[in-house]
Protein backbone atom coordinates (compact mmCIF):
# COMPACT_ATOMS: atom_id res chain seq x y z
CA UNK A 1 0.00 0.00 0.00
CA UNK A 2 2.97 2.29 -0.49
CA UNK A 3 2.18 5.38 -2.51
CA UNK A 4 5.16 6.87 -4.37
CA UNK A 5 4.63 10.60 -4.57
CA UNK A 6 6.10 12.76 -7.31
CA UNK A 7 5.29 16.17 -5.86
CA UNK A 8 7.44 18.14 -3.45
CA UNK A 9 7.90 16.03 -0.36
CA UNK A 10 4.92 16.31 1.94
CA UNK A 11 3.10 18.96 -0.09
CA UNK A 12 0.38 16.48 -1.05
CA UNK A 13 -0.46 16.18 2.63
CA UNK A 14 -1.11 19.92 2.72
CA UNK A 15 -3.33 19.50 -0.34
CA UNK A 16 -5.39 16.86 1.47
CA UNK A 17 -5.62 19.08 4.56
CA UNK A 18 -7.01 21.90 2.45
CA UNK A 19 -9.43 19.64 0.61
CA UNK A 20 -10.85 18.50 3.96
CA UNK A 21 -11.46 22.15 4.90
CA UNK A 22 -9.98 21.67 8.35
CA UNK A 23 -9.02 24.70 10.38
CA UNK A 24 -6.08 23.66 12.54
CA UNK A 25 -3.04 25.90 11.87
CA UNK A 26 -0.76 23.66 13.96
CA UNK A 27 -1.04 21.11 11.15
CA UNK A 28 1.54 23.00 9.11
CA UNK A 29 4.08 22.75 11.92
CA UNK A 30 3.85 18.96 12.05
CA UNK A 31 6.33 16.59 10.44
CA UNK A 32 5.09 14.40 7.59
CA UNK A 33 4.51 11.36 9.82
CA UNK A 34 2.28 13.38 12.13
CA UNK A 35 0.51 15.02 9.19
CA UNK A 36 -0.25 11.61 7.66
CA UNK A 37 -1.52 10.19 10.96
CA UNK A 38 -3.46 13.34 11.75
CA UNK A 39 -5.24 13.36 8.37
CA UNK A 40 -6.08 9.66 8.67
CA UNK A 41 -7.52 10.31 12.13
CA UNK A 42 -9.59 13.21 10.82
CA UNK A 43 -11.08 10.96 8.15
CA UNK A 44 -11.56 8.09 10.60
CA UNK A 45 -13.06 10.04 13.47
CA UNK A 46 -15.05 12.74 11.74
CA UNK A 47 -18.28 10.83 12.19
CA UNK A 48 -17.27 9.04 15.37
CA UNK A 49 -15.99 11.61 17.86
CA UNK A 50 -18.07 14.62 17.04
CA UNK A 51 -17.26 16.31 20.31
CA UNK A 52 -13.66 17.51 20.12
CA UNK A 53 -14.09 19.78 23.11
CA UNK A 54 -14.52 17.46 26.10
CA UNK A 55 -11.77 15.15 27.39
CA UNK A 56 -12.32 11.46 26.72
CA UNK A 57 -10.53 9.09 29.08
CA UNK A 58 -12.00 5.91 27.63
CA UNK A 59 -10.14 6.03 24.29
CA UNK A 60 -6.60 4.73 23.80
CA UNK A 61 -4.25 5.22 20.84
CA UNK A 62 -1.93 2.39 19.78
CA UNK A 63 0.20 2.93 16.70
CA UNK A 64 3.07 1.15 15.01
CA UNK A 65 5.49 1.70 12.16
CA UNK A 66 8.75 0.59 10.58
CA UNK A 67 10.68 3.82 10.04
CA UNK A 68 10.21 5.41 13.47
CA UNK A 69 11.05 9.12 12.94
CA UNK A 70 13.96 8.57 10.53
CA UNK A 71 13.04 11.42 8.16
CA UNK A 72 13.10 13.86 11.08
CA UNK A 73 16.25 12.31 12.53
CA UNK A 74 18.03 12.90 9.21
CA UNK A 75 16.63 16.41 8.92
CA UNK A 76 17.77 17.25 12.43
CA UNK A 77 21.22 15.81 11.79
CA UNK A 78 21.55 18.16 8.82
CA UNK A 79 21.10 21.10 11.18
CA UNK A 80 23.94 19.95 13.46
CA UNK A 81 26.50 18.13 11.31
CA UNK A 82 28.37 21.20 10.03
CA UNK A 83 30.31 22.86 12.86
CA UNK A 84 30.48 26.08 10.87
CA UNK A 85 26.76 26.09 10.21
CA UNK A 86 25.51 24.66 13.49
CA UNK A 87 21.93 25.71 14.06
CA UNK A 88 19.95 22.90 15.73
CA UNK A 89 16.28 23.33 14.92
CA UNK A 90 13.98 23.03 17.95
CA UNK A 91 10.95 22.62 15.67
CA UNK A 92 12.54 19.63 13.92
CA UNK A 93 13.91 18.18 17.16
CA UNK A 94 10.47 17.89 18.78
CA UNK A 95 9.44 15.46 16.05
CA UNK A 96 12.43 13.15 16.42
CA UNK A 97 10.21 10.65 18.21
CA UNK A 98 7.56 8.71 16.28
CA UNK A 99 5.04 8.70 19.12
CA UNK A 100 4.50 12.44 18.66
CA UNK A 101 1.87 11.45 16.09
CA UNK A 102 -0.12 9.84 18.94
CA UNK A 103 0.08 13.13 20.81
CA UNK A 104 -1.09 15.17 17.84
CA UNK A 105 -4.15 12.95 17.39
CA UNK A 106 -4.83 12.94 21.14
CA UNK A 107 -4.57 16.73 21.45
CA UNK A 108 -6.80 17.33 18.45
CA UNK A 109 -9.53 15.01 19.78
CA UNK A 110 -8.96 15.51 23.51
CA UNK A 111 -8.24 11.81 23.90
CA UNK A 112 -6.90 11.29 27.42
CA UNK A 113 -6.51 7.50 27.52
CA UNK A 114 -3.11 5.81 27.40
CA UNK A 115 -1.18 6.04 24.14
CA UNK A 116 1.63 3.85 22.87
CA UNK A 117 3.80 3.49 19.80
CA UNK A 118 5.72 0.40 18.67
CA UNK A 119 8.39 -0.13 16.02
CA UNK A 120 8.18 -3.25 13.90
CA UNK A 121 10.42 -4.43 11.05
CA UNK A 122 7.40 -4.77 8.80
CA UNK A 123 3.64 -4.31 8.83
CA UNK A 124 2.16 -6.97 11.07
CA UNK A 125 -1.58 -7.47 11.48
CA UNK A 126 -0.81 -9.81 14.36
CA UNK A 127 1.19 -7.19 16.26
CA UNK A 128 -1.44 -4.51 15.72
CA UNK A 129 -4.15 -6.88 16.92
CA UNK A 130 -2.17 -7.88 20.02
CA UNK A 131 -1.24 -4.30 20.94
CA UNK A 132 -4.83 -3.08 20.54
CA UNK A 133 -6.20 -5.93 22.62
CA UNK A 134 -3.61 -5.15 25.30
CA UNK A 135 -5.01 -1.62 25.47
CA UNK A 136 -8.42 -3.09 26.28
CA UNK A 137 -6.93 -4.85 29.30
CA UNK A 138 -7.44 -1.49 31.01
CA UNK A 139 -11.11 -1.78 31.83
CA UNK A 140 -11.69 1.94 31.57
CA UNK A 141 -10.90 1.80 27.84
CA UNK A 142 -13.92 1.34 25.59
CA UNK A 143 -12.40 2.32 22.22
CA UNK A 144 -8.95 2.07 20.69
CA UNK A 145 -7.60 4.01 17.74
CA UNK A 146 -4.95 1.68 16.36
CA UNK A 147 -2.98 0.94 13.24
CA UNK A 148 0.09 1.50 11.14
CA UNK A 149 1.50 4.98 10.44
CA UNK A 150 4.71 4.91 8.43
CA UNK A 151 6.33 7.75 6.51
CA UNK A 152 9.84 7.72 5.14
CA UNK A 153 11.50 9.25 2.09
CA UNK A 154 8.15 10.42 0.77
CA UNK A 155 6.59 6.98 0.98
CA UNK A 156 3.47 6.91 3.08
CA UNK A 157 1.74 3.85 4.43
CA UNK A 158 -1.12 4.45 6.84
CA UNK A 159 -3.93 2.27 8.10
CA UNK A 160 -5.95 3.60 11.01
CA UNK A 161 -8.79 1.73 12.69
CA UNK A 162 -11.28 2.54 15.42
CA UNK A 163 -11.99 -0.50 17.58
CA UNK A 164 -14.88 -0.61 20.02
CA UNK A 165 -15.08 -2.95 22.98
CA UNK A 166 -18.73 -3.40 22.15
CA UNK A 167 -18.79 -3.70 18.41
CA UNK A 168 -21.77 -2.08 16.77
CA UNK A 169 -22.09 -2.35 13.01
CA UNK A 170 -18.44 -2.46 12.01
CA UNK A 171 -16.28 -5.29 10.75
CA UNK A 172 -15.12 -7.77 13.40
CA UNK A 173 -11.69 -6.91 14.78
CA UNK A 174 -9.40 -9.78 13.92
CA UNK A 175 -6.01 -10.37 12.32
CA UNK A 176 -7.48 -11.41 8.99
CA UNK A 177 -9.52 -8.21 8.64
CA UNK A 178 -6.57 -6.01 9.60
CA UNK A 179 -4.44 -7.80 7.00
CA UNK A 180 -7.02 -7.40 4.24
CA UNK A 181 -7.72 -3.76 5.05
CA UNK A 182 -4.00 -3.02 4.62
CA UNK A 183 -3.62 -4.65 1.20
Amino acid at each position, binding site marked *: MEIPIQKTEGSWLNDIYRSLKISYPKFFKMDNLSKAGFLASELLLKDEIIDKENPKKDISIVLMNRSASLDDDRMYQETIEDKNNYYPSP*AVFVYTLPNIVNGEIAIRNKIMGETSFYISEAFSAEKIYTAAMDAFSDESISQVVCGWTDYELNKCDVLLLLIRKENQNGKPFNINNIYHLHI
Partner: protein
Amino acid sequence: MEALILELKKEIIEVLNLEEIKPEDIDENAPLFGEGLGLDSIDALELIVLMEKNYGIKLNNASEGRDIFKSVRVMAEYIEKNRTK
Protein backbone atom coordinates in the same frame (compact mmCIF):
# COMPACT_ATOMS: atom_id res chain seq x y z
CA MET B 1 13.48 49.84 8.82
CA GLU B 2 10.36 49.07 6.77
CA ALA B 3 12.39 46.81 4.45
CA LEU B 4 13.80 44.93 7.44
CA ILE B 5 10.30 44.53 8.91
CA LEU B 6 9.06 43.01 5.64
CA GLU B 7 12.11 40.73 5.42
CA LEU B 8 11.53 39.64 9.01
CA LYS B 9 7.87 38.88 8.41
CA LYS B 10 8.81 36.66 5.46
CA GLU B 11 11.46 34.86 7.51
CA ILE B 12 9.07 34.32 10.42
CA ILE B 13 6.43 32.86 8.09
CA GLU B 14 9.02 30.52 6.58
CA VAL B 15 10.75 29.26 9.73
CA LEU B 16 7.56 28.92 11.76
CA ASN B 17 5.63 27.26 8.91
CA LEU B 18 2.82 29.81 9.07
CA GLU B 19 1.52 28.40 5.82
CA GLU B 20 -1.73 30.34 5.63
CA ILE B 21 -0.35 33.72 6.73
CA LYS B 22 0.95 36.41 4.39
CA PRO B 23 3.35 39.21 5.41
CA GLU B 24 0.55 41.76 5.17
CA ASP B 25 -1.50 39.70 7.65
CA ILE B 26 1.09 40.34 10.37
CA ASP B 27 0.70 43.61 12.25
CA GLU B 28 4.28 44.66 13.01
CA ASN B 29 3.11 46.42 16.17
CA ALA B 30 1.01 43.56 17.56
CA PRO B 31 2.34 41.08 20.16
CA LEU B 32 3.95 38.04 18.54
CA PHE B 33 2.97 35.76 21.42
CA GLY B 34 -0.19 35.26 23.41
CA GLU B 35 -2.56 36.24 20.63
CA GLY B 36 -2.72 36.79 16.90
CA LEU B 37 -0.29 34.31 15.36
CA GLY B 38 -0.78 31.71 18.09
CA LEU B 39 2.94 31.07 18.53
CA ASP B 40 4.21 28.65 21.17
CA SER B 41 7.43 28.04 23.12
CA ILE B 42 9.02 26.02 20.29
CA ASP B 43 8.37 28.98 17.98
CA ALA B 44 10.21 31.21 20.46
CA LEU B 45 13.22 28.89 20.28
CA GLU B 46 13.07 28.95 16.47
CA LEU B 47 13.08 32.75 16.55
CA ILE B 48 16.22 32.64 18.72
CA VAL B 49 17.86 30.38 16.10
CA LEU B 50 16.70 32.76 13.34
CA MET B 51 18.30 35.72 15.11
CA GLU B 52 21.63 33.94 15.32
CA LYS B 53 21.60 32.30 11.89
CA ASN B 54 20.43 35.26 9.82
CA TYR B 55 21.68 38.24 11.82
CA GLY B 56 24.53 36.90 13.95
CA ILE B 57 22.76 37.85 17.17
CA LYS B 58 23.26 35.32 19.93
CA LEU B 59 20.82 35.50 22.82
CA ASN B 60 22.51 33.94 25.82
CA ASN B 61 19.38 33.85 27.89
CA ALA B 62 16.06 32.71 26.45
CA SER B 63 14.26 35.14 28.75
CA GLU B 64 15.81 38.00 26.75
CA GLY B 65 13.43 36.96 24.01
CA ARG B 66 10.48 38.15 26.05
CA ASP B 67 11.43 41.76 25.43
CA ILE B 68 12.87 41.31 21.95
CA PHE B 69 9.94 39.33 20.57
CA LYS B 70 7.28 41.78 21.75
CA SER B 71 6.43 42.57 18.15
CA VAL B 72 8.01 42.40 14.71
CA ARG B 73 8.86 46.10 14.93
CA VAL B 74 10.62 45.70 18.30
CA MET B 75 12.47 42.69 16.90
CA ALA B 76 13.53 44.67 13.82
CA GLU B 77 14.77 47.57 15.95
CA TYR B 78 16.83 45.18 18.08
CA ILE B 79 18.28 43.53 14.97
CA GLU B 80 19.22 46.87 13.42
CA LYS B 81 21.15 47.85 16.54
CA ASN B 82 22.85 44.53 17.20
CA ARG B 83 23.27 42.66 13.92
CA THR B 84 26.71 41.36 12.97
CA LYS B 85 25.68 40.09 9.54
